[in-house]
């Protein structure tokens, strides 16, 4: 598959751009941040209505097979939509409900679980969240949450951090250890859990990018054996694929965000005057802008390649996805830092949008592994 958009993908991009512009003004980020108790959407930090509309356009089900109510398209198409969302810093449960939880069910679930959840995800009716992370730095097998066998199933105790869209989710998928020790990739098991289950507490977090994330605690929460997704002890096989796909998608969103930050910075260089000249005439800034451009171009190439590697079922897909996340994260970090610097004082104010871009980019950079994590994984997969 060539590294350019097909005609259909270009049409999709254009309609996504229109929709995103009309639906997600950047200022929404501030509105969600400054939420008042009692306003449902504001507490959620995304809008169920908007998500519903996106589902009607087919986007919530873009990667899911038609038999489950999806569009049956590929990651190349998904990436087009996510990139556009990234341009507007649009808050929506794509990563949590579709890429993480949806994929876990698609790739690990039995037929009954798929029938029960995938059509509802595609229709935008149900939002699911995947509760897996326990450490600050992404390290998915560092799981100490325990699921112990009891007569009627399992009893789960432990704590999950940074559960994306974990507050207000309709259902949770919880990763817990059924055997082995912390750090082992075996002995991990996934459970589908209703948020009302006794012993489960959700605490909403206030995050830098004003999106929804939560701490979820389990205190002797009892679940039955038929709530297990995939096989007991085999979760890491499913999650490795899930994290790859989710990373490729998140990467596309991050690409949209860094591209927009760069475009806004260029615009500022062409309008702000000092010393009787546009600041964009200063070579010190021009040369740094040229370097930012190089980084952006590589991020585009690597992101497109990673998405297509999933669609093509390439054996080196994991390597290409890690390579893309490492490069895109570094590009986003550079552009984030440089954009604030080039805006000068105004860049430090809450009123100017550019800071919102840097904040979201920094969170996305560290979500599902930062460039250090992915560079290390790239080295391992390359065999050195």
């Amino acid at each position: 598959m060539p590294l350019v958009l097909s005609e259909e993908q270009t049409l999709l991009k254009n309609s996504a751009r229109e929709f995103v512009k009309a639906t997600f003004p950047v200022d929404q980020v501030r509105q969600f941040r400054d939420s008042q108790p009692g306003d449902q959407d504001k507490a959620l930090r995304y809008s169920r209505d908007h998500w519903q509309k996106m589902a009607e356009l087919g986007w919530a089900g873009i990667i899911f097979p038609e038999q489950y109510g999806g569009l049956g398209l590929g990651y190349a198409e998904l990436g087009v939509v996510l990139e556009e969302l990234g341009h507007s810093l649009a808050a929506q449960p794509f990563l949590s409900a579709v890429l993480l939880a949806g994929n876990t069910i698609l790739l690990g679930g039995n037929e009954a679980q798929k029938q029960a959840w995938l059509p509802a995800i595609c229709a935008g009716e149900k939002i699911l969240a995947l509760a897996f992370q326990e450490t600050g730095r992404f390290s998915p097998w560092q799981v100490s949450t325990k699921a112990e066998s009891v007569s009627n199933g399992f009893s789960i105790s432990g704590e999950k951090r940074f559960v994306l869209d974990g507050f207000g989710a309709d259902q949770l998928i919880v990763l817990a250890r059924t055997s082995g020790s912390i750090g082992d990739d075996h002995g991990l098991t996934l459970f589908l859990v209703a948020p009302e289950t006794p012993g489960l507490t959700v605490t909403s977090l206030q995050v830098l990018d004003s999106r929804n994330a939560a701490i979820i605690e389990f205190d002797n929460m009892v679940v039955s054996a038929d709530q297990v997704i995939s096989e007991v002890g085999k979760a890491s096989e499913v999650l490795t694929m899930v994290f790859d796909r989710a990373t490729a998608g998140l990467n596309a969103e991050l690409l949209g965000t860094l591209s927009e930050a760069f475009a806004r910075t260029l615009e500022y260089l062409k309008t702000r005057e000092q010393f009787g000249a546009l600041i964009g005439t200063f070579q010190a800034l021009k040369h740094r802008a040229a370097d930012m451009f190089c980084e952006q171009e590589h991020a585009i190439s690597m992101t497109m390649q990673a998405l297509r590697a999933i669609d093509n079922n390439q054996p080196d897909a994991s390597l290409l996805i890690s390579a893309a996340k490492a490069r895109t994260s570094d590009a986003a970090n550079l552009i984030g830092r440089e954009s604030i610097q080039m805006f000068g004082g105004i860049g430090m104010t809450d009123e100017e949008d550019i800071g919102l871009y840097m904040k979201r980019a920094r969170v996305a950079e560290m979500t599902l592994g930062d460039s250090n994590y992915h560079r290390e994984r790239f080295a391992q997969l390359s065999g050195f």
Partner: protein
Amino acid sequence: MSEDEALKTFRRDIADWIEQHYPSELRQTPGADGSDPQQTKTSEQNWLQIMAEQGLLAPTWPKEYGGAGFSVDQARVLAQEQRRAKVRAIPISAGLSLLGPVLLEHGTPEQKQQHLPGIANGAVFWCQGYSEPGSGSDLASLSTRAELVGDDFIVNGQKIWTSHADDADWMFCLVRTDPNASKHEGISFLLIDMATPGISVSPIRLISGPSAFCQTFFDDVRVGKANLMGQLGQGWTLAKQLLQHERQALGSIGRGDARRALTLPELAALEIGTNAQGHIADVTIRNEVAQCELDSLALRTTMSRSADQARAGQNSAHIASMLKLYGSELTNRRHELMMSIRGTDGVGWDGPGYSPAAMRTTRQWLRAKGNSIEGGTNEIQRNVIAKRVLGLPD
């Protein structure tokens, strides 16, 4: 047969052909087995000759000019199959990589007939007469003068940094034909036979040792009018086009090809050793190696994307500046890292006590410094990107 099918068959044929013809001596990694570079050089020459006979050095050129007449898709398949078979990349040459494409587009039928076949079969060697002592980055200020007298141009002046002028057969040269016109308008593009009386060449020694670098002097050199390429006074346009090809070619060095003796991870593993998991034992070096390998992958991917864009008719003209900028900085970083990996075993200049492979790396480290200068310095590339791509004001 559908187009895809045809290309698949073509791919198989090319792969078979490479399998049958690629010399076995070149299949081993040179240096790793201590093979004599001289012998490697001879087999490399033989290989280039075998390629040239099939027109494969200039795959997209028409057959009548010594090319293979391949479509862009076919040429891409050829390149992919060469990479897959770890065939050494064709060395960048001024004739093949720089002049050829411009000559194809702008040469007269006679010029094409005269020059292209010799370039395509590797028989005729070219050098680039652009830079002058007073005109480097500000190339358009050049002052080598060519005066039209009757049917001949009389050329007087000096070129500098002319790589390979000492063994080149021809030079493509920028000269000032109208001293009264504005800076960019009075320049013309001449093809000059290096055997013409009045041309003298003297070599320049570089920080990396003896080199192909020369100064070239013109003293009343007579060049026939038929050797003017393009219109009189329109040489700057051709000159810039040629620079795009040069930048693309220089950028491509950065992606790291199969010519290198050992890959960076192999070199690091060999020199530093590996731990129980098979990882390069020094974590800091391993991290830097990973960064270089990642960045090479990024460069390669952007190169194939820009080829895809060109095929799709999307404008990617100034991508050449970016590839040159990024590629040459990456080449420099890679060589810095190779120096660090070898430590004081890599600071040998000559004589006993240092391995030939290590001394080669050291000279290459020095030579790589030129990558960010030649073909327009990287500061100039940043200027071009800022102006042409990003639209930043002057």
